[in-house]
Every structure is written in C-alpha cells, then in structure tokens.
C-alpha cells in the first residue's frame, strides 16, 4: 500500500514537471535543421573488433568494445589501445555512459551500469553502434554525461546476406564462430535477421579459467505502410566462465607468475583422474526482447515507441564454508609473510617452500581435502528444520559451492517524438522502467556431504540466542540440499520514470542545442526471509525511497569554417543514489542510510576541431564536479574486530583534463595518429563515514571524518598517450602499429586508512604515518600493439582477414591496477597489502570472415 502511494506521488511529480518542461520547450523558438554529428563525419576508418581479456565488463561497465567502432581517433584509441591498461575516458565509470538498445536505455537500475553481458558475442549485431563519448545532444534520451552508444538491433540493422566468421585468439576465450544472416527490407515489407555466435575456451589465457558462451539473435521488422513499421528483436547470450582474480604481489613473487590464479584446484574424480576445477564461476543469461514501433507522422516528424523486456538469471558460484578453515590459497594466513610478521620463521619456511615449489596443496584450492573434510563430518543436527525433537543425521558439509543469484526482471517503455522545422529539431521523450532483482543463494554442490544448515556461523559466535544465527528464522536449523534456496532471499524493486525535451538549432555559423530532463526514481527492498538477527526488519517491504531529479544541458558549435569548429557544452544535473548504496546490508535487512540525498553534477567541455580530408584533429578541455555521492562497502574491521558496513556520505569528485586526438595522412597510404589524454581525477571532499556492525546493525561510529580530499581516483591511468602509424595498401589491405604510454596510475584510497583514528598512535615522523596515508602509486607502463587486415572479392564473395597482436614486446611487468584492501590493521600497517593485476603478456586475435 505504501508503495502504491509512492507510485501516485511519483506520477504526480512527473506530470507536473513534464508540463513545465513542455512549456519551456515550446518557447525555445523556431525552425532549424538537425545538427549533423561532427564526430560522425570524421571519416576515420578505424578497424572494428571486440576483444579483451576481461570483456565481460563486469567491473564497471566498460564501453571499450563499442568505442572501437567510433570514428573519433581519440575514442577509438581509448577503446582499443588503452583498454588493457583500464583507461577510462574522463575518468568516468560506466554509469556515466548510457547504452541504448533500439533507443531504449539499458542501464541496470540497481547499479546504474550498462550490462554488456546481455549481448556479449553478438559482434555482428553490436559492432555498428552509434557512439559519442562526451557531452552531446542525444536523439533518444537525455543520456549520460559520458556520452552514449545506441545499438540498433532491428532487423534492418543487419546487412543483407550471409556473414560467417571464425576467430582464434588466446585471450579469455580461444575460438569464436559466428553466423549472421539478414534479408534486408524485402518487397513484401518484411525484414528478418538472425545471428548466432559461440565462444569457447577450455582454458583461457589465465590458468584455470574457461569460457562457454553461445549467443543468439533474431529480429523481424514489418513495414506496415509508409507511416508505420514494427520491429521485434530478441537476443540473449548465455555464458559460463571460470574466473580469475587478482592477488597480492607476494603470491606472484612466490609462484614467479604474475598471472597466478588461485581460484582453481585439482579434483580427483571417482575414475582416479584429476581435473582442474574452478571455484569461482560466473553465469549469466538475461535475454532482451523488444518491440519497436516507428510512426512517421509526416515528412518532418516521427514518433518512436518501444517496449523492452529483459529477464533471466545471473549468478556467481563460489565456495562457502562452515566451522572450517578458509579454503582459498590466497588467504593471508597461508602466506609466508604472515608468519614472518609473527617472528615465526619455521612456519614461514613451510609455507614458502609450499608456494615456491609449486605444490598445488598450497598454490591452488585443495578440492580433495575439502571433500575429505565433508566426508568425515558425520553430524547429528537436533531440532532440525524447525521441528523440536527432529534429528537429522548425516554428513554435514563443511564446504559447499553456492550460487549467489541476482535475477533480473525488467520492463521498459520508451517513446520519443522528433519534429524537424527549418532550423530546429525538437525531440521529446518519456521513459519508464521497472526492474525487480531477486537476490538469493542456492546450493550448487554439497561436495560429498549430505546437507548444509542454514545458519550464520559468525552470528553463532557473536550471540548466545540461537535464533540470531538463523538466516531464515521461520524454519530454524533448516537443512538445505542442492538447489535449495538459503542464506538470503530478497527482492530489490526499482522504478524510474523520466521525461525529456531537447531542441537543436542549426544556423549558418552556429549550431546549438539545449535539453532538459525530469526524472523520478523509487526503490524498496522486499525481504522473503525473516533473518534471525533482524526479526523486525528483514521480512516484507521496506520503506520506499523516492528521488526526484532534474538535468539540463546545452551546447554550442561555432563554425570557424567548414573545416574548423569550436564547440562548448555544459550540463547540470542531479542523480539519485542507487539502491545498492542506500541499503546498508540488503542481504540481511532493510536498514538504509539516513536521509540519502541526490548527488549533483556540474560538467562542461570545450573543443577545437579540425576536419580536413587528410587531417582530423580534436582538442578538448573538460571539467566535471560530482557532489554528495554515497559510498558503501562491507569489510572486516580490525580495530572494531567486527565485520562492518562502512558508509560514506558527501563523497565529492573532481575531474578535469585535456583530450587530444590527431590523425593525418603523411604520404600515399601512410597516416599517423596521436592521442593524448591528460587527466586529473580526484576526490574533492572530506566525506563523513558511518560504521555499522553487520551482525547487529549497531552504529559503531558516526560522523567519522575521512580525509580524502585530493586523493586520486584509482584503478586507471589518469593520463595516457598513444602514437601510431597506419598504412593502407591499394589492394584492400592495411597494417598499423601503436605505441601507448600510461601515466599516473594509483590504487583507489581505502577510506578507513585516511582517518585521524587510523594514525592516532603515530606521529608524523613515524614511517607508519606516511605508510598509512600515502596513496599507492603504480609505475608508468607501455604497450605496443599491431593490427592488420586484408580483404578479397571473389565474385559475390568477400573474404576478409583481420588480426591484431597486443603487447607485442610481451611487457609483463606493467601493473595496471588493483585495489587497496579495505581491511586495515593500524598495529601492522602493511599486514593487508593491496591486490594488483598485471597487463597480459603478448596476445593475439585473428579472424576470417566470409560475406556473401
């Protein structure tokens, strides 16, 4: 009921705002024609492909794959040559770029990030996405300040004919087969298209990883008459991956392998054979279905209306354990440094020998040991399954593989109206999205045991009351088996409604646009389980959190000549915090941040653009300030000796920088390109932190000042540069080389180290003072990439070969990022060193494509 009221409120807000917007839009003035995108006309023939070691983009929604199709040399270089170094354009996370499918935004309402896994592998469908990576007008939606990409998946987006390709690579997958067929628009008004793709690696670049993916796409489009056309598209990309992870430098040193993966181990099968088994598996299959209606109202106006549905499963399978030792080899107590710090050289030597000798009992998961532990644990569980006197006997698993699901159901509706006057294009749109995520765990493998008991072992240690340990207090001591739901079970409901309007003017010397958006978002949690620690606020619906936001932007292009342009853009917007940050620990309860507020963003850029036939150049200065963001994480806090939920409010960020890209022909078919991204990406406030005990929601600390100002935003090079040469031969071949250099790479600062409490014991002259506070800076790095291709025409058949080699010099010493562990012991500052990852060594991708 409460939720319903909120819908009404939301609707009211929306209608009021939309009316105001409409009035504002009408007053914008008279006719002009649509501004052609300058970037789109830059006729750069950048080759298109999608590759990377981690192209799942799960860690922040990287748009690199789409960028590579950009014709802007800067964006294309950032997408391909800078990708391995985790470069992010303007330092933005993926949530600042909006990815549309047929004009409908596809961001995850929970996180704001795009979900590339939904269409992974369908390169024939996604490769020609329309992409702009900066502040710009947008024909679909207001869009993000980091630009947008629109993937056209309608049946007419696929070129008529067959396209069959095979690719071989040594990255996350080894082989790819792709078949695509499009009919084009036929005389009967129907167009059909399909694509199927499979990617496979028994073992990827990193030991113990594997990759299985089969993607499908089908679309049908009907031109009903001259005014109406209807399109239906469906695509999906079921995928399963055995994952790798990044670890401590110590692990790399011990194993003499900077790509060492502790996620897998040998398991002895009943047959006696041993197999590599990965203990960290990702599975996704969330297809997208969309129906799109285009109504050409007249020559000058049209209305595009879409409904998009997306639902499916997404989960991570990983180890869990009860009353047992941590099974992960990278756990800090399994490393020699731990014993060295305890002055225990004997144990240090044992672990050092185990690691350096490559003994898999030390370096990998010891599956056989885990199975033995389960096999030996005969246990009588009293009062099982909520029944007093009910005793369950059997092998109680100490170790299991569990799947943590976040299954999405989303429905979106988008309608965009375009009207062109003589010098004006007017666009207005409305958008509604609901997304329901079902978050729960299931048992995927009892690993030889008979049952698992759905209790929380930390709560068992912390509380005398036995009910407190129950994850599902309605059925105490519940025994669960393969497939059963356990641990946590809740829904997160998100709703968003937006309306936007945009006017674009095109005059002789000046083009300009202005746009405004109003939006309302609400979300709430709905718990299925009554958690034993939170009997009052874990089951049922939470409070509803509602946020009203507005965004405005405007831009101007001054045409110095037909070849020279000056542009300037600015935007001001507010953004709702996401449900993921507002709920402090949604797995167990509906506690939320007190009075969460919208964040505010100011941003702008100015560019100077040259567009000669043989010389293209863009130089841009940008600026972005983000105020009042919310940040929350959970980790073990050594000072409080408790697992805590750590929430920072008032996190401000500051980004500024220069983007420079030039591409010019030198002589004949030889051209040179250069890209420079100089950036300064900083935290720019002192947020206040609240710390909650995870097991009791007790507020341990509040208004703890975090001295974060001017720390660098980490995990990416703040600056990067690339120079390259490319030769295009007359007989449809080309070859290119790029040297790339990455600078100012930092690890993101862990907040709790930057507090007065963290350094309370130290004076400035103690080495611990700086050791605690200083941000980890990584060395600058470089890569050299080669690219080439050739096409033949044989009658109606086109054969093209394409290939690239990245990191040709096999530079394996470049640490591209990582993270400071949030866990921190101020009595031993170096106890939890950061986890870091290295750029992959030399790797290749080759493909052959036949079109007919």
């Amino acid at each position, binding site marked *: 009921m409460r939720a319903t009221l909120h819908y009404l409120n939301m609707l009211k807000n929306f209608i009021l705002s939309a009316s105001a917007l409409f009035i504002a839009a009408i007053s914008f003035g008279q006719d002009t024609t649509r501004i052609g995108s300058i970037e789109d006309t830059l006729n750069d023939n950048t080759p298109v492909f999608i590759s990377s070691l981690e192209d799942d983009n799960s860690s922040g929604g990287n748009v690199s794959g789409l960028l590579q199709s950009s014709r802007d040399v800067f964006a294309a270089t950032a997408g391909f040559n800078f990708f391995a170094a985790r470069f992010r354009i303007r330092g933005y996370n993926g949530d600042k770029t909006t990815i549309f499918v047929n004009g409908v935004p596809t961001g995850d309402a929970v996180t704001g990030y795009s979900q590339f896994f939904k269409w992974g592998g369908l390169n024939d469908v996604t490769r020609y996405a329309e992409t702009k990576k900066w502040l710009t007008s947008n024909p679909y939606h207001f869009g993000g300040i980091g630009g947008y990409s629109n993937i056209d998946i309608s049946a007419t987006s696929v070129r008529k004919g067959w396209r069959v390709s095979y690719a071989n690579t040594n990255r996350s997958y080894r082989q790819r087969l792709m078949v695509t067929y499009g009919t084009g628009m036929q005389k009967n008004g129907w167009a059909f298209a399909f694509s199927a793709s499979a990617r496979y690696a028994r073992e990827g670049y990193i030991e113990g990883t594997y990759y299985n993916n089969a993607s499908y796409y089908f679309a049908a489009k009907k031109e009903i008459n001259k005014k109406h056309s209807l399109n239906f598209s469906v695509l999906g990309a079921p995928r399963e991956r055995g994952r790798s992870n990044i670890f401590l430098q110590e692990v790399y040193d011990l194993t003499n392998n900077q790509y060492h993966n502790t996620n897998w181990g040998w398991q002895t099968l009943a047959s006696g054979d041993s197999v590599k088994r990965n203990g960290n598996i990702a599975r996704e299959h969330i297809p997208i279905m969309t129906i799109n209606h285009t109504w050409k109202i007249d020559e000058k106006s049209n209305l595009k209306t879409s409904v998009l549905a997306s639902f499916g499963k997404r989960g991570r399978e990983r180890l869990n354990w009860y009353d047992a030792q941590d099974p992960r080899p990278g756990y800090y107590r399994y490393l020699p440094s731990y014993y060295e*710090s*305890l*002055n*225990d*050289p004997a144990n240090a030597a044992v672990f050092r020998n185990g690691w350096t000798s490559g003994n898999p009992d030390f370096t990998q998961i010891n599956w056989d040991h885990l199975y033995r532990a389960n096999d030996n644990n005969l246990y009588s569980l009293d009062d099982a399954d909520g029944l007093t006197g009910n005793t369950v006997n059997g092998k109680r698993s100490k170790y299991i593989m569990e799947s943590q699901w976040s299954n999405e159901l989303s429905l979106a509706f988008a309608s965009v109206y375009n009207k062109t006057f003589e010098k004006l294009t007017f666009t207005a749109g409305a958008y509604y999205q609901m997304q329901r995520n079902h978050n729960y765990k299931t048992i995927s493998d009892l690993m030889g045991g008979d049952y698992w008991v759905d209790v929380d072992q930390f709560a068992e240690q912390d509380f005398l009351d036995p009910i407190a340990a129950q994850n599902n207090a309605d059925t105490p001591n519940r025994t669960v088996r393969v497939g059963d739901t356990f641990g946590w079970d809740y829904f997160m409901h998100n709703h968003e409604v937006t309306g936007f309007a945009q006017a674009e003017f095109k005059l002789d010397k000046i083009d300009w646009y202005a746009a405004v958006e109003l939006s309302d978002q609400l979300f709430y949690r709905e718990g299925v389980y009554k958690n034993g620690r939170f009997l009052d606020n874990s089951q049922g619906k939470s409070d509803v959190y509602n946020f009203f936001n507005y965004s405005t932007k405007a831009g101007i292009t001054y045409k110095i000549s037909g070849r020279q342009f000056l542009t300037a853009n600015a935007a001001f917007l507010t953004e709702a915090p996401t449900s993921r940050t507002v709920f402090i620990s949604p797995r167990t309860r509906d506690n939320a941040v007190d009075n969460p507020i919208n964040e505010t963003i100011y941003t702008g850029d100015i560019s*100077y653009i040259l567009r000669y036939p043989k010389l293209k*150049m863009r*130089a841009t*200065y940008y600026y972005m300030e983000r105020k009042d963001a919310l940040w929350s994480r959970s980790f073990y806090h050594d000072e409080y000796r408790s697992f805590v939920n750590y929430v920072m409010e008032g996190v401000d960020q500051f980004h*500024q920088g*220069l983007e*420079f890209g030039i591409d010019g022909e030198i002589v004949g078919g030889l051209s040179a390109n250069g890209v420079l991204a*100089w950036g*300064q990406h*900083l935290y720019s406030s*002192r947020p206040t932190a609240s710390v909650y005990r995870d097991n009791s929601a007790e507020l341990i600390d509040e208004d703890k*000042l975090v*001295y*974060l*100002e*001017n*720390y660098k935003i980490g995990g990416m090079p703040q600056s990067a540069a690339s120079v390259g040469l490319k030769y295009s031969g007359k007989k449809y071949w080309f070859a290119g080389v790029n040297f790339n250099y990455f600078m100012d790479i930092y690890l993101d600062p862990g907040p709790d180290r*930057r*507090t*007065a409490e*963290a*350094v*309370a*014991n*130290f*004076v*400035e*002259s*103690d*080495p*611990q*003072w700086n050791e605690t*506070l*200083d*941000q980890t800076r990584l060395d600058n790095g470089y890569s050299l990439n080669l690219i080439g291709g050739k096409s033949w025409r044989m009658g109606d058949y086109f054969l093209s070969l394409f290939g690239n080699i990245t990191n040709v010099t096999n530079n394996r010493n470049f640490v591209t990022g990582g993270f400071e562990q949030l866990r921190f012991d101020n*009595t*031993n500052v170096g106890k939890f060193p950061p986890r870091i990852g290295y750029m992959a060594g030399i790797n290749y991708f080759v493909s052959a494509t036949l079109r007919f």
Partner: protein
Amino acid sequence: MKRLLFISAVIASIIACEKEPDSPPVNTLDQTKVITIDSIRAMADTTGATIYTITDSLTTFAIVTMDESSGNIYKNLYIQDHTGSVNVRMTSSSDYSVGDSLRVSLIGTTVSTYNGVVQLDNVDPDLALIKRSGGHDITPVSKEINDITVYDEGMLVQLNNVQFTGSELANTYADGLNQSSENRIIEDCNGNNVLIRTSGFANYANETVAQGNGSIVCIVNRFGSELQLVIRDPEEILMDGTRCAGQLLLKDFDDDDVTSGGWSTVQVDGPSVNWTTSTAGGAATPYGIISNFDSGNTQCENWLISPVLDLSASSTPNMQFNNAYNYTGDPLQLLVSTDYPGSGNPNAATWVDLSSQVTWSAGSWAWENSGSIDLSPYLQPAVRIAFKYTGTNSDGSTWEIDDIIING
C-alpha cells in the same frame, strides 16, 4: 598548428598544478619530551619498593636487543640506546624482533625494580611501541666473565673463549618437559664462571648444551646480587671449538650424594665414621660432612678421594673449596697423589700434603673459602686429591666441605 600547441601548453600549465593530498590533523613529536634510556633507569626506585608511573607524554627511541622469538622470554623485550638498555615488559606478546628500531611512547608505562632489574612495565606493544625500521643490529659488547657486574644489567654482551663446564655437558639448557627454568654454568679458561639461565619455554630448552669452546651472546640479567645471563638466540651460541681445560671438577654435594661423580671414601680406621652429607645449620643445599662424635669420640682415619684427573694438558691447574668446622680435634688435611690407583688403602700411595696452602675455617661453623690452591706441580695424567680426616678416642672436629672446584 603552432597556435594550437601553444594554447594547449597554456591550458596544461594552468591546470596541471599538483594538489597536495589531504591529511588528518598532524600529530607531531614533541622533541623536548624525548628522553634516553638512562633517564628511564634513573626513574626506578632501586629498593624496588615503589613503582613510578610515567604520566607525561615522553618518548624514547631504542633498538630491540632481544625479542620473544626463541621463547626464552615472553611478553618481554630488551631495548638499548647509546645510553643504556632496559627490560621492557609488555601487556601482550609482540612481533618485534632484534634490530627493530622503535619509538616508545612512555605515557602510562611504569618503571620499577625487581630484584635489581630495572623494568619498563605496562607497555602495550600495539599502542606504545612503534616500529620505525628494522635491521639495526647492535653489536654486543665483548666482555670477560669476571668483568661483568650487576651494573651491566640489561646489556647485550658477547663472551669469547668460554664453554659450559665439564659437569654441565650432559645437561640440557633447561627442563623443556616440565617447562621449568634452569641454570647452567659457563666458564672461561681461567675458571671464571657465570650462570646462564634459560626458560623451560625456550624452543631450544631440551637441547643439550654446546659441548665446545667459543663465543656466546647474552643479555645480562640479575637476580639480586646473582648474575644470570640470558641467551637471546641459540644461533648465537658458537661454541664448537676445542675445549680448554676449564673447570675439571665440581663437587657441590647438591645431589645429596658423597660418592657421585667418581668420588670415593676409604675408612682406613674407624668403621663407624664416614663422610656423608647434610644441610644442618639451615644450608640451602647439602654439603659434605664428617664427624667422629656419636655420644663419644671414635678413633678414625677417613679419606674422601676425588676421581682421577688428567692434568697433563693443563697449564695452571688450581683448586678451591669451602670449608667450616667446630670442636677441637686434628685438622683436616688436603692431599694430592699422582699414583693412587683408585682403590685400596691410600696409605700405600704417595701423597703430598697441600694443607698449608689452604685458608681454613676459623671454627664455630664459620665457612671459609680455601683460596686458590696451586696444582701446577702435578701436570700428570692420573692426579687425585683427597681430604684426610683423623680423630681420636678423646677428641675430633666436625668438618664440613662444599663446592670443590678444580680448574685446569
């Protein structure tokens, strides 16, 4: 193009100013509150009666000279600076190791004296000890055994050319089974000796003591007026050289046995009289005793004869023992022989009387040390010494002897 580069350069220079990262309010060290270890020691009440609590925000800088890793000390460290060293007693065990340079925050700690040992106590290793760096090994001070005094308490010393005494060679450093501390004796080649005290929790407690001659690094400790050296790391016991003669014999009767260690008694006359042991008079440990009085005096001649000693490799062998007596009678005699076969009537062998070299007790049970008795005329392979007791039917003294030591 040039104009463009120029503009870019200007913009870059405007915005490229590096911004200093934030910092919590700076805690600075008050240089006027930095003190040295001699000042800490000066705070101690040497009588041990009172405990001084440091209430000021004082700081000292020092280097760890002994840590807990060997198990020989627990929740303790020794630290040292250029002015001295001190025992640190912590509220919990720590991971600091030898050579760590520490800043010690002294507020809330206490300074006291325990049996002469100055202790910096109540030190929280997590809060009060800040490791600044590691690897600053302090070179131990080379000392001779007889140069060490109780005033060196806490100091890191190295003794060269020393060895465990011959009577210790079958022993372990401590009793690791019962986890009880034990004392062992080391000596130099001049027969000077000192105690090595080892905890039963030390990880080498059950190892047999080093058999050879060489160097050892210790912390000087004391228990009242008694010196006790503490091994900080068994790796620093480098005693595998050829032994010097050292202490050839120790007979302290502490095992309550007269004839242990190869000693023998011979009753030439007076079968009711013999050497035995006693703790009468409140002695902490037994001593050897003989008396011919048992409701009347008995005529007797009773010998206490040492095991055979090989003095052929010795340079300046010497001997000492403690003695006391009461009642009138013949004096006790100290004799030496190079031809007594080890059994039979000693009078059949040749004995030289050394009694005149002995400082004898003044009587009335007053203990006296014999002083050093020169055995260098007897550099023979089969030397024995003997105490010869004689009594008559009318009189006889009661003699007590203890701590007979023969050094090579």
